[in-house]
């Protein structure tokens, strides 16, 4: 190309207005001449296209038959295996696909090869005419005049007032969609009941955990004692109360003042609900002592009281204070000292309430 190139951008000053000032332009040559297809000139080709269309429709018939056979011949009894279901799904799908694609490709082929392919030009009409506009304006003026709304501001203003208030019942009627939050988010099942401390039990079977079962490096998914016996709101309680229990070398834990006796012998328990948006923080990296949330990759450092070291969470995971009861089982000495899970507007208020 080299020396041919002269298509550099025009300096912006060269054209004063937005292209309205006409530089001489190429004339529209009009629609290109129509080119005949093979099927237009050769009767043999037309006949061939006709047969192809018919074959495609025939394929559709085969597809429908395949579907019906797969539906009626494969029996999903009580002992049907996943393999049977997959086979049936495949055959039903292929049957439908051929039934539909046969018709679809047949019709399109028919349209492209045999129906006239002359492009037609049609004039566009104005979306509205000036006559219509004038008439419409006159009608609107007449309507407004006949209502007299301009001359009677009392009617107008009282109507506006009434209309503004009228939707309120429509909003109020949704007031019973749910209870008010109150302080439900501030508490979990871990609070001691009638002076009895709750044992830490395994998720999901609910067997209590002995401190001696927890070896260094191990991790347990924990639910509070009595959760499985709940009939109402079991998942609601579980959604707040799930805990991760891990044992580290006690030297690698650095409890802050006031939290020294929240663990036992290097065993610590933290809320499993991410402080970001509430996914379960289910991944424990034993070597680095990191907890990772698989949803958004918030990472918490167990050796720094589950401080956030990476990802979108902003708060450490709440710690559950634990101890050992007379029989050697792990128990929670109190509820969490702060609300668990994602932050919410009243959270700070609730935290102060818990600690007061």
């Amino acid at each position, binding site marked *: 190309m080299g020396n041919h190139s002269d*298509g550099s951008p025009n300096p912006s000053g060269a054209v004063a207005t937005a292209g309205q000032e006409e530089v001489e332009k190429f004339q529209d040559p009009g629609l290109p001449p129509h080119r005949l297809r093979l099927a237009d000139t050769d009767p043999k080709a037309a006949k061939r296209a006709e047969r192809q269309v018919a074959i495609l429709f025939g394929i559709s018939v085969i597809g429908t038959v395949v579907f019906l056979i797969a539906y009626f011949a494969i029996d999903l009894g009580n002992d049907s295996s996943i393999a049977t279901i997959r086979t049936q799904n495949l055959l039903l799908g292929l049957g439908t696909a051929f039934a539909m694609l046969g018709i679809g490709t047949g019709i399109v082929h028919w349209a492209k090869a045999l129906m006239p392919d002359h492009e037609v030009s049609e004039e566009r009409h104005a979306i509205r005419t000036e006559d219509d506009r004038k008439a419409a304006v006159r009608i609107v003026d007449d309507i407004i005049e006949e209502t007299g709304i301009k001359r009677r501001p009392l009617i107008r203003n009282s109507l506006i007032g009434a209309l503004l208030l009228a939707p309120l019942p429509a909003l109020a009627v949704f007031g019973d969609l749910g209870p008010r939050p109150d302080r439900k988010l501030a508490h979990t099942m871990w609070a001691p009941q009638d002076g009895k401390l709750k044992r830490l039990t395994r998720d999901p079977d609910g067997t209590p955990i002995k401190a001696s079962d927890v070896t260094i490096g191990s991790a347990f998914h924990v639910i509070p004692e009595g959760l499985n016996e709940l009939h109402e709101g079991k998942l609601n309680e579980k959604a707040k109360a799930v805990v991760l229990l891990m044992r580290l070398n006690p030297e690698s834990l650095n409890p802050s003042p006031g939290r020294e006796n929240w663990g036992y012998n290097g065993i610590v328990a933290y809320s499993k609900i991410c402080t970001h948006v509430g*996914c379960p923080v289910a991944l424990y990296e034993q070597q680095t002592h990191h907890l990772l949330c698989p949803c958004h990759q918030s990472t918490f450092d167990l050796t720094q009281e589950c401080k956030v070291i990476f990802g979108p969470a902003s708060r450490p995971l709440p710690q559950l204070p634990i101890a050992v009861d007379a029989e050697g089982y792990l128990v929670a000495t109190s509820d969490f000292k702060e609300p668990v899970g994602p932050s919410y507007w009243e959270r700070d208020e609730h935290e102060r309430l818990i600690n007061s």
Partner: protein
Amino acid sequence: MSASSTADVPYVAKTKVGRFTNFVDERVGGSGILREFGRKVFPDHWSFMFGEVALYSFVILLLSGTFLTFFFDPSMAETHYQGSYTPLYNVEMSVAYNSSLNISFDVRGGLFMRQVHHWSALLFVASLSVHMLRVFFTGAFRKPREMNWVVGGVLLILAMAAGFTGYSLPDDLLSGNGLRIIDGVIKSIPVIGTYISFFLFGGEFPGTAIIGRLYVLHILLVPAIILLMIVIHLFMVVVHKHTQYPGPGRNDGNVVGYPLGPVYAAKAGGFFFIVFGVIALMAAAFTINPIWNYGPYDPSPVSAGTQPDWYIGFVDGALRLMPGVVNDFHFEYIVFGHTLTLNVLLPALVPAGILFTVLFTYPWIERWITKDDREHHVLDRPRNAPTRTAIGVAGFTWYCVMWAAAGSDLIATHFHVALNDVTYWLRALFFLGPILAFIVTKRVALALQRKDREIALHGRETGRIVRLPHGEFIEVHAPLDEYKRYRLVGFESLAPLPAVPNEHGVVTRSEKRRAALSKWFFEDRVAPASPAELEAAHAHGHHEAIEAGADQKSLTH
């Protein structure tokens, strides 16, 4: 309508079909409708099919969805699974999950219908999005179609809402965690967040109300509004008539294409079956949302590599990209004793907010900058509107960075790179990606325009090297015929529009701003080749043209 019939002799149909159609016609006036639409002209182009795909996948969604409602039970009551999928036998679960399993394993064709429904939902949002990209990049949103563009944007949001409400219905572990994320985001809303959460879930998360409520939204409210919007959308398409790509014989005053009957109706109708067939093929061969692998919802477990459906990905990705803590700076504050959690609130609302605000207002922004109040029925080729194309690609890149971030863990595991590095890179790209994309796209568009000019003026390269008598080597260029040339030169190249004083002779501040934007929009531009330039080019390359002409002759036997 025989020639003998006159006004006072009523028309009498001679055949059975004729009598029947006449009966209907005399009562509803179908002739008028047929006269208007029977031969209505529709332009044809492959890129016009995306909207059709969206429409057809919606029809398939209605068909397959209706089947599913006959078997699905949206109750969250507890039950124990007794169906034929043995790994979950006797497992405690909700009735909703139980009935989803039954649809999959104990209703013949149920799994197929679930797969068809899910695949067409994914395709519906995808084709709608691609259709909107097509409309944006070709400038089809310009006057008189701005309102239809807005309807399209509303449809996109509704499609996402329909998708998400449906995705949650089986009450499986994966979708339950998705709901939990939504709950977390809702709780981050200042002042009313907790209340909205309690109202939505009928109490604490997860409660026993949410599936039933989402079900009503999913099968009644959202599809009804979608249907209404589609009707409005198509009505406006009829009012406006379809846009057409530039080319010889096409201008803003006409519409060139095939008549509705028979060619266009056949192609479009046949295409419905093709879309259905392709969806059936996907449903047959590719598993989607195997809920039996996830298990019932339980707030404790979660599987690694969790992903939302693709169209929610960009919001999830934004949530992942936002750091919660930078050094010792926390994005969660206590404001007057209340918790404000910007690390959730900002990424959940701001990027999506910006995307949709720009999307909805763009037609008016461009109209304000260009002061262009004319009707446009001929599309722009994307290269001929370099700045608009660059804006579109920048926005698309931004979206894609967030979307990729929703798979940051999978990127890390598949490419064996550190998860943290993937996040750091994507954070950088979140800000730099759109800028780079803008610059690169604009340059590419301008380069393509120059290439068009080059070809219009000098013909296409034939790849034949010829040695001239005096020893010079040249490549033979074949001139274009006038139709092909018009495709390359038949566009309007707008130039910056300087600030103009208003009727009081004052150049307002907003007018100055507009002029600055206009300059930014149009200062880099390539004007279409003009006849005078072609003349000059011919004088320059006269011998080449002759050579090429002779060449062509020798090729055509």
